[in-house]
């Protein structure tokens, strides 16, 4: 029983990290209807920038801020130079562009920082919690708290600010939002800034959690997150979060506890097909 609970807790942490990455993907899809696979590269870059700043300054705050800033810039650059000009073409065109960007960035990371696994020896100042026989390590607490913080922040922006309202309007219908005086391009860029910053946070968190930063670390979430936004209901942020948490727990239990050795990507897609057969628009998609 104790092992089971510990695995569930690990699964929730895994799911939280997936949620952070998938969020960005859901936000971008919601607004541009583009599958932003390159988001996984943004996440990787976040980890590298965070590591660099940490090595230089030792300050966690600067690490996270720097990572968020760097990722925002990268995200906006991708949007302006790759996606925006390709919007008028059928969807597989920006998709191929996105994959090309992801591979290029991966290669650049490899060339600049080396193919080796670098360590990220930081400790996050979160307490260890003891509940009965279960110990929740400080890093697990860090993941839970940071994820919860990000989600609350997003929820607040979305429901209590003009920006959030504008974002929701633009994601419904860009021409009409434009006609109402919303500068859709600012909204689109803001969406990328928010999504990419969150990816940066996720990259740094993962780097610290596993104590590993390496060029192909983006491949882990990259394609899984596609399955997750489908399961969640394309473009639905709450759906993406729920789907991510569920997958994190399911994966961890199946692989660690029940010993099913299937590769995680395949598991995610099998789950996706299962959910789609039950409910064809995803968990929280609209018909």
């Amino acid at each position, binding site marked *: 029983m104790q092992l089971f609970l510990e695995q569930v807790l690990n699964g929730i942490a895994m799911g939280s990290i997936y949620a952070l990455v998938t969020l960005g993907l859901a936000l971008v899809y919601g607004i541009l209807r583009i599958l932003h696979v390159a988001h996984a590269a943004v996440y990787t870059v976040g980890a590298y920038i965070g590591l660099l700043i940490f090595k230089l300054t030792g300050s966690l705050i600067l690490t996270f801020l720097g990572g968020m800033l760097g990722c925002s810039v990268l995200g906006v650059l991708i949007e302006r130079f790759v996606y925006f000009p390709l919007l008028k073409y059928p969807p597989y065109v920006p*998709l191929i562009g996105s994959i090309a960007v992801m591979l*290029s960035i991966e290669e650049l990371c490899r060339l600049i920082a080396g193919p080796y696994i670098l360590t990220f020896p930081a400790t996050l100042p979160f307490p260890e919690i003891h509940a009965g026989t279960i110990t929740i390590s400080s890093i697990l607490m860090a993941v839970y708290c940071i994820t919860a913080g990000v989600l609350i922040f997003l929820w607040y922006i979305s429901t209590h600010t003009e920006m959030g309202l504008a974002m929701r309007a633009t994601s419904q219908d860009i021409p009409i939002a434009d006609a109402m005086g919303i500068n859709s391009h600012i909204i689109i860029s803001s969406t990328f800034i928010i999504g990419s910053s969150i990816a940066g946070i996720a990259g740094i968190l993962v780097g610290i959690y596993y104590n590993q930063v390496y060029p192909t670390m983006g491949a882990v979430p990259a394609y899984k997150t596609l399955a997750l936004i489908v399961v969640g209901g394309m473009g639905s942020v709450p759906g993406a979060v729920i789907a991510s948490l569920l997958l994190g727990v399911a994966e961890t239990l199946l692989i660690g506890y029940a010993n099913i*050795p299937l590769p995680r990507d395949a598991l995610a*897609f099998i789950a996706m097909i299962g959910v789609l057969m039950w409910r064809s628009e995803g968990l929280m998609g609209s018909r």
Partner: protein
Amino acid sequence: MNAYVITIATIIVINAITVCGLNVIVGYAGQISLGHAAFVGIGAYSAALLSTKAGLSFWAALPIVIAICGFIGLLLGLPSLRVKDDFLAITTIGINFIVEAIFLYIPFFGGALGIGGIPRIMLFGMKVKGLVFFELCLVFLVLVLLICWWFTRSWAGLASFAVREEESAASSMGISPMRFKLLAFVIGTAIAGLGGALYAHYMRFISATDFSFPVSISLLSMLVLGGMGNLWAPLVGAVILGSLPEIFRPLVDYRILFYTVLLLLMIRFQPAGLLGEDSFARHVFSSVLPGGKK
């Protein structure tokens, strides 16, 4: 001709064959398939198993391989083609990952070690290799091109173009969209199976990662670079993306970066492909290419 060039050329021709299959699905019928490598893999593994475990010759196994791929294409196409665009894209990605996982984890398919010792193709009592193998692949390519060309001239092809352009309008003219999407899909996967069989007998050793998702992207990129829907696009794309890594070989460490950046530039500035209507290549070479876009 030196052996190295023949190797590259053979792989290019095999790729061109599989991309022709993709062209029928994506170019002619307008359906997104991001998991084409899975069907190449199904063809390769079928050929490998039929020749190593069942002792069949390449020629005896070939019709079975094509039938298997077409049949699995039918099974997978039925649920997948009901959904559109982004859903379809992700579903085909999922198919790729799941098929690859099956090859990797079910012992019957050799697991992580794959399948080795695939015999050479025998023709008139001779082992086919080197230049002769290349020529054999060329013959198959011509055959596949003929099939694709005939498809574009048939009513089935016209129906597929209609479904690609405006599905509901096509339906109002007696065309069942599902039927023709499926038809194109099955033809495409069957052709992919042929490519896979040739690949298996060429490499003589295959493993699951030869058919992973990045390979599907590579195949789709060849098609898009050539110009989807154009008869010659698969060949143009396969030649370009097949020779580029070799051209960049001297750059050693930077070669993958150059390759991906070039892909990015090409998709960013020439998404209709080199054979597309307004392409810079057409402006440069103003002579008319045979086959034409349909």
